């Protein structure tokens, strides 16, 4: 999958969540996503950035414009070196939360994207990748 543009944003304080949203919006506009699709991936990016901050103890997001089979899309990869998630299946369920949110973060973000994958090991960290295609 060729990548035509890459940006990185560190997620360390709560203001960074806003910066992640703005970056995601800019890339979505550049790719030409519909307004609803833009809103969906920006919202998903907000959920995941907050997860990275609150549960992962901070981390980084890599935002890319990707191309596959003539379609363009936005792909975001959130990485942290936090405690990780032991039971991913449970974490994806609505209402599950180990923190102060509504427990919609992971499952909700998954529903808002075309692609979603999560890789996490307890003690090592978490990596979540999402994509939304035009």
């Amino acid at each position, binding site marked *: 999958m060729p990548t035509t543009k890459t940006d990185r944003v560190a997620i360390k304080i709560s203001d960074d969540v806003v910066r992640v949203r703005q970056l995601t919006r800019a890339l979505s506009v550049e790719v030409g996503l519909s307004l609803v699709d833009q809103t969906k991936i920006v919202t998903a990016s*907000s959920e995941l950035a907050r997860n990275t901050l609150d549960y992962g103890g901070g981390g980084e997001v890599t935002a890319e414009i990707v191309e596959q089979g003539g379609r363009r899309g936005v792909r975001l990869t959130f990485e942290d070196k936090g405690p990780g998630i032991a039971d991913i299946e449970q974490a994806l369920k609505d209402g599950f939360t180990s923190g102060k949110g509504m427990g919609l973060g992971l499952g909700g973000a998954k529903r808002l994207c075309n692609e979603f994958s999560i890789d996490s090991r307890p003690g090592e960290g978490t990596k979540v990748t999402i994509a939304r295609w035009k």
Partner: protein
Amino acid sequence: MDRIPILKFGNALLVTIQVDMHDRLATALEEDLTSKIVAHNSRGVLIDISALEIVDSFIGRMLDNIAAVSRILDADTVVVGMRPAVAITLVELGLSLTGVKTALNVERGMALIHDRLAGSEADDADDQD
């Protein structure tokens, strides 16, 4: 620190959210509204989110909290002006904000609050008879 201004409008409070809300701003708004409801003995809270491009679960939870707190303080909360794309996304996210009243715009929201006030005043009058 930045704060979102809260306007007093008769016996209601009006908040227009016009910035991309970061989490501390949302938490501050929740606190400010609670104290203003008590200070002004307000019966309604209008939150205009027509300028908001997204509402994520954090802001959703803030709206839910404001509605719950104001209900306890005997005030109605009406969220007005949510954009279609935001509404679709919130539903997909799994947030239906069932505890929050909604209206298309500020005018309709204000009418909603006044209707309820008129209704409850009529009830009070009945009680006195």
